[in-house]
Structures are given as structure tokens and as C-alpha cells.
């Protein structure tokens, strides 16, 4: 039970997540995103092994963003009519406007939760392999992305290295974070130049070992679509349909 979401085919999960998000975009009532959000949370609570502390940390900035959405839609919302429920600093807030603002904020929350469900239950490497095998992503692209992904920790090291090297030579660190943001090009250019060299070297190494980028018929590690995927797709679609219909009915 706790493995179900982890065992799903990544491409199937990817398509389901994308379809759900596009479907939700058609609803402007607060109930649909709320129901969907709760449904997804329940799904993740029962069918995955999620580190919830980390999950909360990831959700934090998006909850803040959702709050921003809430108040801007209240203040800068389109004229929708409806009865005024409260006034604040000369702004009349109607019930319709409040419902829409709530809907957009909850939509941000629902989207973020759905994304985290994907992020916490999907192995990145398996995802790319599955994109190549099920969704016919070109091997050149797929393995290209994999090369980039493998270099991620190297890039992190290089970032600190360049920073330390510059400090060693007396380049001063700016005091404020916005100044440091502007100074980013000093690190960005050497990073990119290093990236160009790495790209050339690894492409050469791949070709030297016989990588042609031609589509294949057999894979060393096949990723398959199984019975779990059919069941889980059913569960996802039930949650989506229930929240769409339930939301429209409740509002």
C-alpha cells in the first residue's frame, strides 16, 4: 500500500498530474481546488513513504505565495457583482470576489501539493528513462539530460570553488543580498565556461564509446506500464472528477 505511488510508471504519473492541473484551471469556485487538494493529500498520506518534515519545508514558500494571490485577487479582482460582505480601507469585497480569490489561492496550494506528490514519489533517473521508453523522447535528449543531471553535484562543488578562489584573490563579498545577486555574473560566466568544456568532453567520451543517439528497440533497464498504473490512474481520475463535480455542486 505504502509503495503504490512509488511503483507507478513515471510517465503515467506525469500525464495524470498534467491533465489534473489543466482540468483544474477551468474552475473558479473555491470548493473544487479544496476538494482536490484534500484528495491528493489523502492519497499521499496513505500510499507513499513521504518525509513530511521536508514536505512542509517545500510547501512553505508556496503557501506564502498563495497568500499573496489571495489578497491581490481581493484587491485587484475583476468586477463580478454580488453582495458586499465586508469593506476594508475603502475596498468593498463582494462574496463572489472572495470566492474567486479563495479559489485561486487554493489552486496554488492544490498545484503545489500535486507537484510535491510527484517529486517525492518519483525517481529522477527512472522518470527520464520512462519518458524515453513510453513517451518516445529522443535518446539524444534523454541521455543529454542525464549527463546534466549527473553533473549537478560537480557544479555545486565548482560554485563554492570559484567563490573561494575569488575571495582568495581579494574579490570582496558585497554586504547586501541584492548586491550579491547583481554580482552573480562574476560566478556565472566561469561556471558557464566550465560547463561548455565539460559538455565537449562528455559528448566526446559518449561518442567514443559508440553512442549514436539512434532510437532503440531494447533497453538495459526497461520501465513498464503495469496493473498498478491502471488502478492508480482510476483513483486519480476519480479524485479529479469527484472534486470537479462536487465543487460545482457545492458552490
Amino acid at each position, binding site marked *: 500500500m505504502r509503495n503504490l505511488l512509488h511503483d507507478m510508471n513515471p510517465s503515467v504519473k506525469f500525464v495524470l498530474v498534467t491533465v489534473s492541473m489543466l482540468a483544474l484551471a477551468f474552475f473558479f469556485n473555491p470548493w473544487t481546488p479544496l476538494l482536490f487538494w484534500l484528495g491528493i493529500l489523502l492519497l499521499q498520506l496513505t500510499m507513499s513513504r513521504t518525509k513530511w518534515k521536508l514536505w512542509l519545508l517545500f510547501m512553505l514558500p508556496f503557501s506564502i505565495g498563495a497568500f*499573496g494571490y489571495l*489578497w491581490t485577487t481581493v484587491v485587484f479582482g475583476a468586477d463580478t457583482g454580488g453582495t458586499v460582505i465586508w469593506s476594508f480601507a475603502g475596498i468593498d469585497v463582494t462574496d463572489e470576489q472572495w470566492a474567486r480569490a479563495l479559489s485561486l489561492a487554493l489552486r496554488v496550494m492544490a498545484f503545489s501539493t500535486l507537484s*510535491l506528490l510527484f517529486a517525492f514519489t518519483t525517481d*529522477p533517473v527512472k522518470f527520464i528513462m520512462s519518458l524515453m521508453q513510453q513517451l518516445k523522447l529522443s535518446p539524444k535528449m534523454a541521455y543529454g539530460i542525464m549527463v*546534466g543531471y549527473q553533473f549537478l553535484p560537480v557544479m555545486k562543488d565548482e560554485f563554492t570553488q570559484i567563490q573561494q578562489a575569488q575571495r582568495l584573490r581579494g574579490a570582496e563579498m558585497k554586504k547586501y543580498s541584492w548586491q550579491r545577486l547583481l554580482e552573480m555574473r562574476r560566478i556565472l560566466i566561469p561556471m558557464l565556461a566550465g560547463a561548455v568544456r565539460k559538455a565537449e568532453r562528455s559528448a566526446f567520451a559518449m561518442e567514443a564509446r559508440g553512442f549514436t543517439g539512434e532510437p532503440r528497440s531494447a533497453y538495459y533497464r526497461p520501465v513498464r506500464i503495469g496493473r498498478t498504473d491502471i488502478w492508480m490512474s482510476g483513483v486519480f481520475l476519480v479524485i479529479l472528477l469527484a472534486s470537479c463535480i462536487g465543487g460545482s455542486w457545492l458552490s
Partner: protein
Amino acid sequence: MLKSWKLKEVVLMSLFAVVFGIVYLLFLHVANIWAALIGPLAYEWMFGIWFIVSIICMYIIRRPGAAVLSETMAAAIEVLIGNAVGPRLILSGVIQGLGAEAAFALTGYKHFNILVLMLAGIGSAVFSFVYGYFVSGYAALDPSFVALMFTIRVLSGAVIAGIGGKYIGDALLATGSLRGYAIARTKKGDVNA
């Protein structure tokens, strides 16, 4: 589309996607904090940053598809790193990339001067705005507020992505590491290319 590409060009896009994927995520968090204070407007003025990889890659590689593929790869890398925007990012990456690609396609992939690069930034801004209008429900906002958002995003696309992209591309060319790519070949011949 990828048939005529050299592998090193694909891998180059991927590594740039890694560098900018990290930069993108960094700015996403900055933008989210801002967004709590000033609402969706916070994202608008920094939107150009999220278009920059497609413009830099097209400026260097100069092949049809470089803009849309690099932006898609950057989005894919962001998803691989793991974040709360998730798989939806890939879709918005494709759309932003298509916007830039459209501008380059309009000029027949022949000119890569500052005006075309700015146009590409504007293209990304327009495409992403149309998509955002749908997904983030801008229809619920006041039309004049939406117009303001649109204007800021287009300006950001032109200035940050267009001018900034050219600046980074030129700075990179000056380091001499781009010798094997299209940008270095045309620079030698004539200045206007």
C-alpha cells in the same frame, strides 16, 4: 529535428540547463516571498530571468529548435532537482521556449543581433502570459491590472532575457571556450551576423 545536431551541442544545452535550472529555482523562491508582499506582480518583473537560457543557447548554437529544447531541458532539470511547481514546469518551459523560437523562426534563423534577441524575449513573455492567463486564472483579475502585468512582463522579457542573454553570450565568447560552436564561426567572418 535532432538528426543534424552534434551530440556536444545537446550536452551543452543540458549543462546550461543545469546551471540555469538552479538559478531559476533560486529566483522562484525569491519571487514567492515577494509575491506574498505585492502579489502576482512580483513574478512579472523577474520573468525575463526564466526565459534567458533559450536565448543564450540559440545565440550560441544557432540551430532551429535550440530555444525550445534548451528551455524544456532547463524545466526538466528543475523537475529532477525536485520542487513544488513540479511537472507543470515542463509544460511552461515548452511554451516559453516556443515563444522565443517563434521570434527566431520569423527572422529565418539568420540574424542574431540584439533586436532579434529582444524580440525573442518578448515572444517568450507573450506566450507565457497567454498560458498563465489560463492556468493561473488571470481572468479573475481586473483588466487594467492584467494589462499592467502584461506590460511589465514584456519589458522584463526584452531587457533581462534579450539584453541580458546577449551580454552573457558575448562575455562567454570572450572567454574563448565557445570555439567549436556556431557563434564563434560567424563572429570571425562578419560582424553583423
